[in-house]
């Protein structure tokens, strides 16, 4: 089916992107908190193939930067010393996938540090921080979505399956959560939690907060599906045979929700990554020195940075390919779902 191909194509594309971020240690030449105090606010280095004398080099190289006299942050290329890039170099140690210690990096230069996307105020490589920040932001999005979906699934299933007062109460609460503008709610929840937490705790805090705000929508969708699935013939038959509620839920009802859940996941993940970015940007998320796409952008709030150091803006665009991937995934999933049209039949009967 055409839809399947589209779906898998998007999935592969996303997989590659995520893979790069996952192996951030390998793709990034330096660690995310490595400061180089002699090179604050370096502009991105250009990779050359042709040097000042017009010679072509097979191996690309960069020029090291020299501080212009009398200034603090005006640099110029030191054209005298080309520094060739090497590939698969060994550098600072990291853990691939958090497990395997390794020292291998995709590229690096011999003497100078390579700043593909420039450096920030402490001389940290923005490119490396981008990759590691992606780990944090994307993981926050994933876990937040997971949390929201699990919560939504359980609540929606209970509401849909048992109906009655449980349904009413749960749905009313869900409505409440949906009524409030979600970002405001997110902030309010964050406000009630302690400000001064370590990076790891902050991370889980964000996930918890996002999940606590975002369960309502999946819950309602799941509930709709469960409502319809509950009345299907084969389910009734199974119940007639004496199957327990749990069995029914597990084997017949819940699998019907899978397509809804998948679609929701594809929609929610980018949304929650954005939520984490927003929180971190405003200082309420992951604290320094742990990078996240949000707090990589936070010093753009200072006028001087906004005006002088344009490369600090680039992390904002890092998420674009991911959004694109998720968008494609979501739309291909929705098209696929349309082909099945489960819900339409089921919702004809209302209790």
């Amino acid at each position, binding site marked *: 089916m055409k839809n399947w191909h589209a779906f898998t194509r998007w999935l592969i594309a996303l997989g590659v992107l995520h893979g790069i971020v996952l192996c951030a240690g390998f793709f990034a030449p330096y660690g995310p908190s490595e400061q180089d*105090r002699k090179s604050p606010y370096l502009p991105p280095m250009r990779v050359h193939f042709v040097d000042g004398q017009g010679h072509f080099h097979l191996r690309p190289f960069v020029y090291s930067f020299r501080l212009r006299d009398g200034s*603090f942050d005006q640099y110029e290329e030191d054209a005298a010393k080309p520094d060739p890039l090497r590939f698969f170099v060994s550098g600072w140690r990291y853990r691939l996938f958090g497990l395997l210690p390794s020292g291998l990096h995709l590229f690096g230069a011999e003497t100078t540090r390579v700043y593909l996307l420039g450096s920030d105020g402490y001389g940290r490589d923005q490119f490396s921080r981008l990759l590691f920040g992606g780990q944090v932001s994307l993981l926050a999005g994933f876990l937040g979505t997971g949390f929201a979906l699990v919560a939504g699934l359980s609540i929606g299933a209970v509401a849909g399956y048992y109906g009655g007062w449980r349904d009413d109460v749960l749905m009313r609460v869900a409505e409440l959560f949906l009524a409030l503008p979600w970002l405001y709610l997110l902030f309010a929840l964050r406000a009630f939690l302690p400000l001064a937490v370590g990076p790891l705790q902050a991370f889980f805090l964000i996930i918890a907060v996002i999940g606590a705000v975002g369960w309502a929508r999946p819950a309602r969708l799941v509930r709709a599906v469960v409502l319809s699935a509950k009345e299907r013939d084969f389910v009734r038959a199974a119940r007639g045979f004496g199957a327990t509620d749990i069995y029914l839920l597990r084997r017949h009802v819940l699998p019907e929700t899978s397509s809804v859940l998948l679609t929701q996941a594809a929609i929610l993940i980018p949304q929650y990554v954005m939520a984490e970015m927003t929180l971190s940007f405003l200082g309420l998320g992951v604290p320094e020195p742990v990078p996240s796409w949000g707090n990589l952008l936070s010093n753009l709030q200072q*006028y001087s940075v906004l005006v002088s150091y344009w490369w600090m803006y680039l992390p904002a665009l890092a998420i674009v390919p991911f959004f694109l991937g998720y968008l494609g995934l979501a739309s291909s999933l929705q098209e696929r779902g349309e082909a099945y049209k489960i819900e339409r039949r089921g919702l004809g009967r209302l209790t």
Partner: protein
Amino acid sequence: MRISRAKFQSFWMLLSLLLLFVVFLGHPAIASSQQRDTKEELLALPGELGRSGGRLVVALRGEPKTLNPLIAADSRSREVIAVMQADLVHINRATQLTEPALAKSWKISPDGLQYTLVLRQGIKFSDGQPLGADDVIFTFQVYLDENVHAPQRDLLIVGGKPITVRKVDGQTVVFQLAKTYGVGERLFDGLAILPKHLLEKPYQEGKLAQIGTLETAAKQWAGLGPFRMKEYVAGQRLILERNPYYWKADTQGNRLPYLDELVFLFVPNADAQVLKFESGESDVISQLGAENFSVLSRQQKGYVMTDAGPGLEYNFLFFNLNAPGEKASSEMRRKQEWFREVKFRQAVSNAVDREAIVRLAYQGRGTAIWGLVAPGNRRWGNEKLAHPARSLDRARALLREAGFSWSNGPDGESTLQDAQGKPVEFSILTSSSNADRAKMAALIQDDLKQLGMRVQVVPLEFRSLLDRVTQSKEYDACVMGIASFDADPNSDINVWLSSGGTHLWNPSQAYPATPWEAEIDRLIEEQMSARTFEQRKKLYDRAQEILSEKQPMIFLASPDILAGAKNSVGNFHPAVLEPYVLWNVEQLYRKSATENGTR
């Protein structure tokens, strides 16, 4: 010989006229108007002569809360009040020495306990009423009244007793101190003289705190400063106009100030200040951060940026050395054990990369400091203090001596542990609105990571920060900065004294918690009453030595004073003491021909 009748009559006429004239002269109104016309004693200020007229626009970060010096606590209110009030003796911000102001001369008695001040004659308040010794007496009565709770009261308690003042005649007053005061006449700087004719009634009714608000000051208040209140638009701006009775003139006899109007614009933050200056809406800018200064320096169209050199601000890291309350957790107690260990603090001080702080937080426009006396203070610094270069080895050696050890983690990173094997972790608070200090905290965090300490930086809004540090005392460490308002050690007295409110690591102690704090208390109190500069310096040097040894505050860096003004602003000479740019506001003038201050 018989005098002719005509001559006799004319003689009596003359005599009666003469008598009438004398009586007439004696009439108080006539007499005083003659006084008014002839006897006003203006202070002639040396310096460049300027043109009269024009308007100066200053962007203020925030809004002043009040124009009443008795209740003004925030810096914005004080900044505005400074141009509306005058004091008896003033410290010249450029020379850092005292000058006569409202008092044209003063004498200190040989025993150092009596200060006799002679007021300038013929001076009037901004509403036209004359200034006399009665106003001075009233002013100090109000300042010292315990029910008024004036912030100035503490400044006037010398030797444990408040200063008393008595009137000698219409122009002379004598201040009596309980103990000799090394500060001398500097103590009068900034103490605004209040108008008795306006404030006596509210004072007697106990309503002093309610007058002098921004909305009502125009009618309720009169000052002796170069400007008086004209208009206030809430949330937008404050307009001051020239005080026509100001008592200073230039060397040619033209009455100051030159400017017709002084406008304060309210902007939310430092970046907005920069935007206003850049777009030409404001004419001067001060208290700039180094980054904004660089941005503005790069463009320099129509304005000039000045680096006035090192100032008096000192930034430091300090630890929570308060005595733990009953509710303190065991974790807090454990952390405080580390903090109390002198070698721990010394190790931290050795590990901090001050040079990087100056370079990255101040873009090189600053100086590394190892003591409280910043380089802008030329006379009082202890030159013999050690300025050790950064040395991680020495830091590690100190930690080892103190019983700390390192454990190696699986990834090759080492964690510092105390003698019980607990990893050393703590958080550093910093103000969320101050980017420089946030940078310092982040740099320190990284430095301490090299020692194996896990440090977190927690930005908090400034008021909450202050509350945590001075009231609830719930914090581990904090990075803060203080800008002394005067070069004299007296201005930092609340930091030195263990009973002081800004003795930040353990404020407002009932009695000194450690012997070295007690020693510092003693030294500071002695230098307060010492009479000569040499005596005071010796004592102050020793106090600085102790501080440098015990390191309750780990001093980091001091920024230069950065300011800028449009090219059309004349007499612009930023000083390193507050108010940096407006200290000579009466002499500032506009060079261009246009009346309007904006571009």
